């Protein structure tokens, strides 16, 4: 790697992912090349079974590819151990899921604090950072409420705060608006594009809603385990 050229944040080369064996073999990814520069905003689209979720899992270091190479900020991830991948998720990645995935019977603040615990930060600093993140998503006043006391939109904002708390470079959002109505969905998308625009956080989002994809700068379409289309998109403000 040449010292003057900044490596791309995410670089997938000829990634395949195969489940099962023989007759029952499923080829979820059949050779994918994808490069994402820091600060980009991607919308990954495609019909179900097209491999977009598998690709997200690979990017998120939750899954390992069967073949191909994955470099994250110049580091070869395919060779990392399970625990090393956990470290990478902890320090560089934030996750937002369709079903929010907050811990039940645990306050919003404690939920946001969770990734910071694994970073081994002292409690006072964790709470300060968690509050800051909650403030950023506009839920500082709901810090001590349990998820069950929050609306879906609020829960998703807590989840975004959790993803943000550790100051990651990348947020991976898997159908973040899948469970929300249009108004709430737009609020969440505004929040995400704000984070992308103002904080320079790279966002990779899986969605099947064209409306939500409008917020992204780049559209990547999956079909049958391959990237069918990858083009820039003119973001229309408002």
């Amino acid at each position, binding site marked *: 790697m040449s010292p003057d050229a900044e490596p791309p944040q995410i670089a997938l080369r000829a990634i395949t992912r195969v489940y099962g064996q023989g007759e029952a073999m499923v080829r979820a990814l059949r050779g994918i090349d994808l490069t994402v520069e820091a600060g980009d905003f991607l919308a990954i689209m495609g019909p179900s079974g097209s491999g977009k979720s598998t690709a997200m*899992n690979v990017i998120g270091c*939750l899954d390992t590819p069967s073949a191909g190479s994955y470099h994250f900020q110049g580091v070869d991830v395919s060779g990392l151990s399970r625990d090393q991948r956990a470290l990478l*998720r902890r320090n560089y990645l934030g996750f937002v899921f369709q079903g929010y995935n*907050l*811990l039940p019977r645990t306050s919003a603040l404690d939920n946001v604090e969770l990734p910071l615990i694994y970073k081994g930060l002292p409690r006072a600093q964790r709470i300060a950072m968690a509050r800051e993140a909650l403030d950023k998503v506009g839920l500082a006043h709901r810090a001590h409420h349990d998820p069950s006391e929050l609306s879906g939109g609020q829960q998703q904002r807590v989840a975004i705060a*959790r993803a943000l708390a550790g100051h990651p470079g990348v947020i991976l959002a898997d159908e973040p608006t899948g469970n929300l109505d249009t108004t709430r969905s737009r609020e969440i998308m505004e929040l995400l594009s704000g984070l992308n625009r103002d904080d320079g956080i790279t966002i990779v989002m899986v969605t099947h809603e064209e409306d939500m994809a409008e917020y992204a700068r780049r559209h990547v379409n999956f079909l049958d385990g391959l990237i069918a289309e990858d083009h820039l998109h003119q973001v229309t403000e408002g």
Partner: protein
Amino acid sequence: MLLEAFRLALHAIFRNALRSFLTVLGIVIGVASVIAMVTIGQGSQLRVTRDMESLGTNTVMVVPGQGGMRQGGFTADRPFTIADAEAIQQDLSTVAIAAPYNITGITAVYGNQNHFTQLVGATTELMDAMNWSIAEGRAFSEAEERAGRPVCVLGQTVREELFGSIPPLGQTVRLESLACEVIGILESKGATSFGEDQDDTVAIPLKTFQRRIAGNDDVSIIFIEARADVSTVRAIRDIEALMRDRRRISSGEEDDFSVIDMKQIASILTGITSVLTGLLSAVAGVSLLVGGIGIMNIMLVSVTERTREIGIRLAVGAQAGQVLMQFLVEAIVLSLLGGVMGIALGLALGALGAHLMAIPFAPDPFVILVAFAFSAGVGVIFGYFPARRAARMDPIQALRHQ
């Protein structure tokens, strides 16, 4: 991180307080029964030792027959006489005190109250030797003893049963055909190791007993204290030889009396209580094992139930070791809480048992420490397998779990 895991564990435990409590109930019961058993067992051993000490370690009882001591004191065997006791005291250099006495069951009557109790025909010497002290009034004098006067000293139980709140001194109590004046009340002594109430007794002079109650000159027991500088074994040998001679038992024949060494009885009693304590503790120990398996079961259920939570934790960057630690610490904290509750409950039960059995409350700090360590051990052993299962989960599968 360990402190954090501890905090998380407490959070998880109290998030589902009822289930956590039911989970550790096995440990609570196990630890409580071990602690209670050991506490009561040691209390009774202590009691035996203390009883024997109050009697004196060089105390020997001589009773007629080969059956040993019998309730009530009367046996078909040839009884002793006062002369036997006098001979033991005077002829044997190894003996300090030989005090004859009689015992029988009798109904004591005062007014319309009556109470079945133990009547002792005693001498002042015997009362001294047995540490019977007077709480109220006085003991009978040697003159009253020689003359066989109708006077009596009551134990606390008899006094309560017959007189209640009436002052008993100077009143007359009827013992069968004998009407005797109450001249004193004995100091309370509590129950013996055998559970016998030592306060349920009435003492009258031995002569009075022989003439007015038994109608003969018999003595049913001789209480002997060996000299302090002489071994009890030697004193017993002397007593046996003298009594065989006095009772004209030829060398081929067996003794028709028994010499009982109180030390032996003490060691037998101590032996029995320690064997019983051991057995019961072993049974209680099994319930600890069952409690441990209960913890493992619930932890496994908990791990399955919390699959999604584990997935979330893994996704935000928890390493396998951290998840393992979390569940392991949770199991340990859970079983330690159970252990602490068990120790508290066991001590409470032990104290209650000690109170009911009138034995000293003797908690053993070592056993408490062992119980605490054991419950931690249960947490480690039975928590490890579920924790390892949690740590090895695949984050994607775990996140998809419904």
